[in-house]
């Protein structure tokens, strides 16, 4: 038999419990395609960390490596205090993983899935039944418990998936795009579940392509783009990376747009959209002064929207097609490129 048998006890506490996950110089490539190009991460225990990035940025690869599913090409990696390269079995005992694709056994019932996990965590039959019943209750799966998991809806499968992950009481939980493909209600339920996990003191490492999700849940966010960490910090710190908000004045008549642009010299022009952006923090006082001023110079916009900076701005600034130059020159001009942004564009509605 292979030598990959767990030598340590399941509950072994790490050497450095204050750090849940640390990575220095994490690299992975497939052939000549570099997926992760030297990633550094430091995630304190008991916090929620979000790895944010567009499709193909390498988020899933990072989770697969840190959860021992695949090996890294290089990097010093520790999870739960254990070295991933030398002691993967100890890492496995400390973590729980919910991947992007449903990891439930569709052929057996939800309850049987839970009991399978209990058996694999070597719980006694009685303890296994207790934990399974408790988690099924907590994740609102009691009614469906006796039905084959293949018959579950997407949201139910995801809940069962996470419930299964929790059977062993992991201290560090990896959630790879936990809400992708869920409807809005299920997504909000999932957020509630993740907040619930955090309140029990576990560390959560989640990946997402939804900025709002990272903003809602995470203590710290790293933006992954093209295999590198483009920025890292709290949501507020990241928002500070891009210039402040603005008032957007939209025009339908090019002539009026031109005359307004001639007067409002400090505004940023978007000639294609016939829109001007006047820097503003979005406060009532400042808004009123802008409106008064527009009246005084006789400009009447057809459309007026207030935009406060959000993670979208950061995301697009850091991961857009010309991210490098934009990030470098971000102080000079507001980085909002609605014309080049293909999706998820929204004015701030919070």
């Amino acid at each position, binding site marked *: 038999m*292979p030598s990959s*048998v*767990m030598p340590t006890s*399941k509950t072994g506490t790490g050497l450095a419990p204050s750090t849940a996950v640390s990575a220095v110089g994490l690299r992975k490539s497939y052939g000549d395609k570099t997926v992760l190009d030297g990633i550094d991460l430091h995630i304190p225990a008991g916090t929620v960390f979000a790895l944010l990035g567009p499709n193909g940025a390498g988020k899933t690869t990072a989770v697969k490596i840190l*959860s021992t599913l695949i090996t890294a090409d290089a990097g010093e990696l520790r999870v739960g205090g254990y070295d991933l390269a030398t002691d993967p*079995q100890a890492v496995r005992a400390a973590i729980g*993983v919910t991947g992007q694709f*449903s990891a439930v056994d569709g052929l*057996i019932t939800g309850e049987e899935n839970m009991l399978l996990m209990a058996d*694999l965590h070597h719980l006694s039959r009685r303890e296994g039944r207790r934990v399974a019943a408790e988690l099924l209750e907590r994740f609102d799966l009691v009614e469906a418990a006796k039905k084959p998991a293949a018959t579950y809806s997407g949201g139910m499968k995801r809940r069962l998936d996470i419930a299964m992950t929790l059977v062993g009481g992991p201290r560090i939980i990896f959630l790879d795009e936990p809400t992708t493909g869920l409807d809005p209600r299920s997504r909000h339920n999932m957020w509630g579940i993740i907040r619930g996990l955090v309140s029990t003191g576990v560390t959560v490492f989640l990946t997402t392509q939804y900025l709002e999700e990272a903003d809602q849940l995470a203590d710290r966010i790293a933006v992954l783009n093209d295999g590198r960490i483009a920025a890292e910090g709290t949501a507020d710190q990241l928002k500070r990376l891009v210039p402040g908000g603005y008032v957007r004045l939209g025009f339908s008549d090019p002539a009026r747009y031109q005359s307004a642009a001639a007067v409002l010299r400090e505004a940023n022009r978007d000639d294609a959209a016939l829109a001007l952006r006047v820097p503003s923090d979005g406060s009532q006082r400042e808004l009123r002064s802008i409106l008064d001023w527009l009246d005084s110079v006789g400009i009447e916009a057809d459309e007026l929207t207030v935009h406060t900076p959000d993670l979208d701005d950061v995301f697009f600034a850091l991961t857009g097609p010309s991210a490098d130059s934009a990030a470098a020159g971000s102080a000079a001009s507001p980085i909002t490129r609605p014309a080049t942004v293909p999706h998820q564009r929204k004015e701030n509605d919070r």
Partner: protein
Amino acid sequence: MSALALAVRDSTTMLRRNLLHARRYPSATLNLLLTPIMMLLLFVYIFGDVMSAGIGGGGADRSEYVAYLVPGILLMTIGSTVIGAAVHVSMDMNEGLVARFRTMAIHRTSVIIGHVVGSVLQCLASVVLVGAVGVAIGFRSTDATVVEWLAAFGLIALFALALTWIAVGMGMSSPNPEAASNAAMPLILLPLISSAFIPASTMPGWFRPIAEYQPFTPAIETLRGLLLGSEIGNDGWIAVAWCVALTALGYVWATARFNRDPA
């Protein structure tokens, strides 16, 4: 928990899962029995007169051909049943569940061992069912001793283990369950070019070595010898050698594929 205890415990859990699948979806297993049973009925009742005449040099009756045929059909049943293992393994590998198992602190190959043991048990159950059909249409093994019965059982189990490991390797290497089913097809076709239906000695000269030395023929001849008292000769050792070799090959193949980084 010691490494061995962990391996046994986790493999038992995985075996329970495997048997639960089989119990929940018996049609998946039973469908695989259709081919050998149909072959048995076809050759006995449709082709039976001609086959009997050919076997006995002109004078045999049908019951003699039933006796000749059943051992081969029993081993064909194993070839057919393990196709289910190939498909099952491939289904598993295409699900996120195996990724979950890989990130758990369990015995790494327990999921494979669960499949293998489950498949061998299913093979034995299938052989019993098909054997019962054989008995129902007149197969009798009257003069076999207890030792010969045990040896026959051991041979069937060993053969099932060998083909299961190969099938697991096929399932592990296939991109999807359909491909796994196709890859495992030779396991049910090989008996057709063995001594299952007609003696290898009646085949064309150039083809005879292929028929005689492929895995099925020595096993079939050995089983015939044990159940019916015909000459076994070298076939016993060749059969065991094939089983051991196929088991080793399948084990190395399947575990190597399993231990590779998933894409």
